[in-house]
């Protein structure tokens, strides 16, 4: 009996393998947000491995890709979704548009930095890692006589006023993770205070995440908060830019998933396995792609200065990232950032400038009254419309997702209403902070 079952299993296994090998043909349609440099390289290599297969790369912005998959799900003809931001995959997972896949490629560890590489539920897999950092334009800094900022805290120094660019967390999933990482690293209040102090130096909040490297490359602003491969690939393309990982950063996996009811699941599985294979991982080292492989052995083939998160423990391990916490307050953090920073950037900048001017005037003097006013002004800027407990409350964050499971479910409050209340307070605070700082300066 035992032998028979083993035999059966072996036969079954054999038939599975042969059917898998046979079925990798036809067309594989991948919805992706990646640039041609990445998709073209992988398409070519994969097609030459499976000559009977044609890979169709359907390029969509991440948000457009999600909408596309959602709207076409009843008549789906896409096989895979391939993008960076883990939150995009979370949205698809919640919409029941993904199907679980387990790769049989070995040698991939559980975690990179403090972040699990694969979705714990098994719906999407990480194939590369990326971390956030600061990139700067060397010509720009030289002309403005500035030194590069190497830590997040450096970015709030007054000499960088008007020289920093960043995307908004609501626009880019990876930016969201950077914002959340710093908040988790420093604590809710201190983390937000840090972000607002940095944002006071912003030249702009870009609408696309690629707008940041674009602005630094052009010299439109000098320093940018970007994901590593934007900085590294800009450098590889010849732009006068450099990139550094600050101490508090997190490494995030870039992911791939199989779309539910895809027309060619065998080829899709083969593509995941290919991405994770030795050959696929080595392709990531291409200077035009420059992503961190998730297979530690691949780093042996990397150029000398290539960051290795599996060896260099300073990259991405300073903060123990709490995924559940982040997911819980995801939309609240995005909305807070937009209300306090993106949409009120001018007010925030004016207040920051006034405080910086007052501090400059105060330097070398002792004037307790002025000092107190400046401290008050800083506190006004840092003040948050809601505390951490409220932000973490699932009932509160439901206002932003409004996912009513049943038509009878009720959600109290509307996003517009909440945001208007926040906005009122934030705007008044910034104006008051500016007035206090100006008063402090006039006393000196």
């Amino acid at each position, binding site marked *: 009996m035992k032998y028979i079952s083993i035999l059966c299993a072996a036969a079954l296994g054999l038939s599975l393998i042969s059917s898998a090998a046979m079925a990798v043909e036809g067309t594989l349609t991948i919805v992706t947000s990646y*640039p041609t440099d990445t998709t073209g390289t992988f398409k070519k290599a994969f097609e030459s491995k499976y000559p009977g297969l044609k890979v169709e790369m359907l*390029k969509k912005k991440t948000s457009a890709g999600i909408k596309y998959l959602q709207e076409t799900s009843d008549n789906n*003809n896409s096989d895979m979704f391939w993008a960076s931001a883990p939150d995009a995959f979370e949205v698809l997972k919640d919409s029941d548009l993904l199907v679980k896949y387990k790769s049989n490629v070995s040698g991939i560890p559980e975690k990179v930095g403090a972040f699990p590489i694969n979705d714990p539920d098994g719906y999407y897999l990480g194939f590369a890692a990326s971390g956030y950092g600061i990139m700067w*334009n060397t010509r720009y800094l030289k002309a403005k006589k500035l030194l590069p900022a190497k830590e997040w805290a450096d970015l709030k120094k007054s000499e960088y006023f008007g020289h920093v660019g960043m995307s908004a967390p609501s626009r880019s999933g990876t930016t969201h993770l950077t914002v959340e990482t710093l908040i988790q690293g420093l604590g809710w209040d201190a983390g937000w205070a840090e972000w607002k102090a940095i944002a006071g130096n912003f030249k702009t909040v870009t609408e696309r995440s690629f707008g940041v490297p674009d602005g630094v490359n*052009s010299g439109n602003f000098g320093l940018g908060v970007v994901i590593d491969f934007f900085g590294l690939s800009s450098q590889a*393309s010849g732009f006068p830019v450099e990139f550094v990982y600050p101490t508090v950063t997190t490494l995030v996996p870039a992911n791939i998933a199989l779309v539910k009811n895809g027309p060619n699941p065998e080829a899709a599985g083969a593509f995941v396995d290919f991405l994770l294979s030795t050959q696929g991982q080595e392709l990531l080292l291409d200077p035009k792609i420059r992503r961190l492989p998730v297979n530690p052995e691949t780093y042996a083939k990397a150029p000398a200065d290539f960051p290795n998160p599996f060896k260099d423990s300073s990259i991405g391990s300073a903060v123990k990232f709490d995924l559940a916490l982040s997911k819980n307050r995801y939309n609240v953090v995005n909305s807070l950032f937009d209300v306090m920073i993106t949409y009120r950037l001018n007010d925030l900048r004016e207040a920051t400038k006034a405080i910086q001017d007052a501090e400059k005037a105060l330097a070398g003097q002792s004037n307790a009254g002025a000092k107190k006013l400046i401290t008050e002004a800083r506190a006004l800027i840092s003040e948050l419309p809601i505390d951490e407990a409220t932000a973490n409350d699932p009932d509160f964050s439901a206002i932003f997702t409004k996912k009513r499971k049943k038509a009878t479910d009720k959600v109290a*409050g509307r996003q*517009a209403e909440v945001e208007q209340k926040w906005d009122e307070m934030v705007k008044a605070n910034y104006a008051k902070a500016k007035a206090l700082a100006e008063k402090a300066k006039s006393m000196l």
Partner: protein
Amino acid sequence: MAQPISSVQRGPATIGIIIALFLILFLALPVLKVIFVAFQDPATGEFTFINFVDFFNTSLFQESFFNSFYVAIMSVLVATLISVPLAYFTTRFNFSGALIIQTLGIIPLIMPPFVGAVAMQLLFGSNGSVNLLLDEWFGFTIPFMEGLNGVIFVESIHYFPFILINLSAALVNIDRSMEEAAQNLGSSGLRLFRRIVFPLAMPGYVAGAALVFIKVFDDLGTPLLLNVNNMLAPQAFLRITSIGISDPMGYVISVILVGFSLLSLYVSLLALKGKDYATTQKGGGGLMKRDLRFWEKIGCYSLVIFILMLVLSPHIGLFLLSFGTIWSYAVLPDAYTFDHYITVFSSASQYITNTLLYAGLAATFDVILGTAIAYVVLRTGIRGRKWLDYGATAALAVPGVVLGIGYLRLFHSVDVPLIDKPLASWWVIIVIALTIRRLPYALRSCMAALQQVSIMLEEAAENVGATKSRTVWRIVVPLMSGGILAGFVTSFATASVELSATIMLVATESDAPLAFGIYEYMQSASGRGPGAALGIIAVLFVGFGTYMSHRIIERSKRAREASVPVTEGATP
């Protein structure tokens, strides 16, 4: 109005109904399918206006509304200052190179997505070429691209061709005898222009100005490129495309944008109401052209060249970018190369044929629909005919992404017979989307053109026995040809660089148009040069198309004039 449709009107009525059905199916239904959430209570899902109450109670939206309005008004003013001299000089005087100027005037409309923005920043940004030079020589900089003024600056040099094209078409259409009559009575110079010429060209100017106003009010690209968020269109876009958030305010703003655009269209129509702009005589056609004196010539040329340099500067920047190696914090690129063109050449041919096919078809449909709607609205008494105009123009205010999602939602489950594919992933859907999105441009030009044609000419044709359809084909359409061409050109040029709806609808790589190719390249640092090269290719193709259509019109006009010398002689 209330009497039954007469037999003469049966034809136009049928056409009107067909167009109405087309607009309902491909504009109203898809948009309603998406924006109904604006009228839904987020908590209970019931029908409500609470979201609109929220809109008016939110100070951010109030500011956004005011900002959008201010920017739109100012852009119309600046665009008028740019286009009136160009239009007047080229149609009024014997001006060598008038054709070139008319062609170059269209180029600003072809601003390729993303690369256009980069080129503008490199030239006019706070550390762009102009400001680097100013800083070096004079120690100050000008914030061309900052805040609302930056938006006005970019919008007016982007959209002034709407006024230029429609105003030129109208000026060419003015009856020469009107001008002569005024001159006989002793009017000349500025007074002649102000009292006779400009008022007669009013339909063209208002058509162009209304387009600029509505387009700027609804425009998304420019504020996003300058990262100005406190305006309505970017607010709608940012809220609709946020990942995972289902905020109805984005759709509420879309509804407000559509409503306000229709209101401003209505106001612009009021401005023309009760006046007759039609002139009957068409033989000689256009204003009298006269030669310029030497000093006048120099003055005119320097003004025209200055304006052209200004409005073409983004494309000069784009040109440099497409040949430059690295261009970063410098007045000019570090070095020059052909590599980017070589890179794109392998992929470009497919993009170009797709773009020419889609934009060409869409613009053709647009002028056909535009002419038909103009005729139904202006020449028949069919009830509700004005709604065809309003409905088609509403497309101007619908964000491309809303239309794209609506099409996916509505047509993805509809399989096209024979090719066995969902309608939403067939390339024809892209043509339909472009047709709908660019119809308002063609429609305004066609309306303006028909307003200048006197109904007496049609009556004359019918009196000598021509049928209604023969009158339309042989009399109305030829007399409208200038306006129809203007409509075709604007629709074609802007359709060729459209991205927001197409990006939702492109279902296979082989169906992708040029704008999509540029988007792909502009996702990576190394793709900036090739993206610019593709942009230049787009500009060249559209520019060439424009030039050729001007040539064709000029030639046919000359042929017509030559064949009817009697008319020419009969108007001393």
